């Protein structure tokens, strides 16, 4: 049996406020879990993540891998009978995990997102080649996918030079705006 004090509401309220989603209407019907192709890489099914939040198990929720494995492509939310925007809840949890500085379960995913935004900050658009190089550099992994990278360059799937936004000031403003 789990004994709940009143504090467990706080965390749920925080995530509810941050994500703007009322996940308390979740029926735990597991439609989301059954439809997710990446559940294998998650330690908790999407509905179980919602449960963790409802129970106020903050550390477990913020340190679980599911919030990083979820790619947010709405297979779950399209079919959720309660129309819960599950990816938005995951977004809320990811932000909270970064904010609270907890241990990130899938650093590679965070590393990838960071590198994507680095190129957007620099050019206004993503630059795949640079994202890949920096991602690999941080990971100190140059060997895996090397052949694939070369094949993609040969097939011109990775442009060498970035495509850029002219109005650099506007992009700077976006990354400064709070």
């Amino acid at each position, binding site marked *: 049996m789990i004994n709940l004090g009143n504090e467990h509401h706080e965390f749920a309220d925080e995530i509810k406020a941050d994500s703007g989603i009322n996940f308390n209407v979740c029926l735990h019907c597991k439609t989301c879990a059954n439809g997710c192709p990446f559940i294998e890489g998650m330690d908790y099914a999407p509905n179980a993540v919602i449960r963790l939040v409802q129970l106020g198990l903050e550390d477990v929720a913020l340190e679980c891998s599911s919030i990083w494995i979820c790619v947010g492509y*709405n297979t779950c939310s399209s079919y959720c009978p309660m129309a819960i925007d599950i990816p938005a809840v995951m977004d809320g949890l990811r932000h909270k995990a970064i904010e609270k500085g907890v241990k990130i379960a899938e650093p590679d995913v965070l590393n990838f997102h960071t590198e994507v935004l680095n190129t*957007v900050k620099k050019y206004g658009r993503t630059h795949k080649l640079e994202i890949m190089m920096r991602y690999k550099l941080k990971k100190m992994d140059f060997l895996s996918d090397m052949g694939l990278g070369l094949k993609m360059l040969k097939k011109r799937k990775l442009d060498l030079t970035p495509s850029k936004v002219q109005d650099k000031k506007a992009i700077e403003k976006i990354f400064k705006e709070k």
Partner: protein
Amino acid sequence: MKKFLKKNKNNRSSERLRFSFFPGCALKVSGHESTLSLLKFCDSVNIELKELEDWNCCGSSSAHSIDHNVAKHLPMRNISLVPKGIPLLIACPSCLIRLKSTYLKIKEDENLRQEYEEAWGKPFDEDLEIIHFFEIFNRIRLEDYINHLEEKLKKIKVAPYYGCMLSMPPNLRFENNYSGIMEKTLSKLGADIIPFGYANMCCGTYLSVAKPQLAQKVVTQIVSKAMEAGAECLVTACSMCHLNLEIRCALENSIPVLHFSELLSMALGAEDQKKWFPRHIVDPVPLLKKRGLLVS
């Protein structure tokens, strides 16, 4: 009556439709063959796409994952760039969701509207239409541009793959839904549609980089199920899906993956395939020759 219909039909085809076009990073910087064939197709059906001037990345999957504020303002700037009165057409499903959700949020939220107008120095355009490329098929009739359309694709066996394209977050649930649009269009053009049950399974998007094993498993399953069902090729309308289906499939004998726009353009008689097909990792040329869709 007949005369009237005929006249009306001609009118339809002579009226040039104009759209602002948001290519997004996937199309602009790596899916060149997808962009080229898309532009070609639109031109052949009398549609003018004018690239949105100085557009920026929509934020992709990364901005909303780790930076709310950037995720809000990247789409906002794009919305502010659209010339008034011209609908914005987007081909990438992910960019569409980012821009459209932001647009609807601004529309509903007075504070956000104020923030938008202050940051981007323009009044918010209430009437802006943001549409997916698929919407074109509700606005034109291929019959008006092609004779004998049912003979064009010569019974090539295609498995249409949508990935997440038809899945919408709850706030976009009541937007137009395009289920079956590739099946309908391609079968009208004479392709043989192979249903395979995995058409809506996500391709893994960036997990292909950060968690390659997970993406590989899913992609290999998608491709092998299409092959088991008897498909000669997969067809996708998203260049991110296209890339993942090509690079993460672990099968030795994988079938080619074609862009929806490539098949459409070919059916309309385009001859620029030389610019598209060398960019494919699994060469579609032998199959297309075998089916008599390419000569020499």
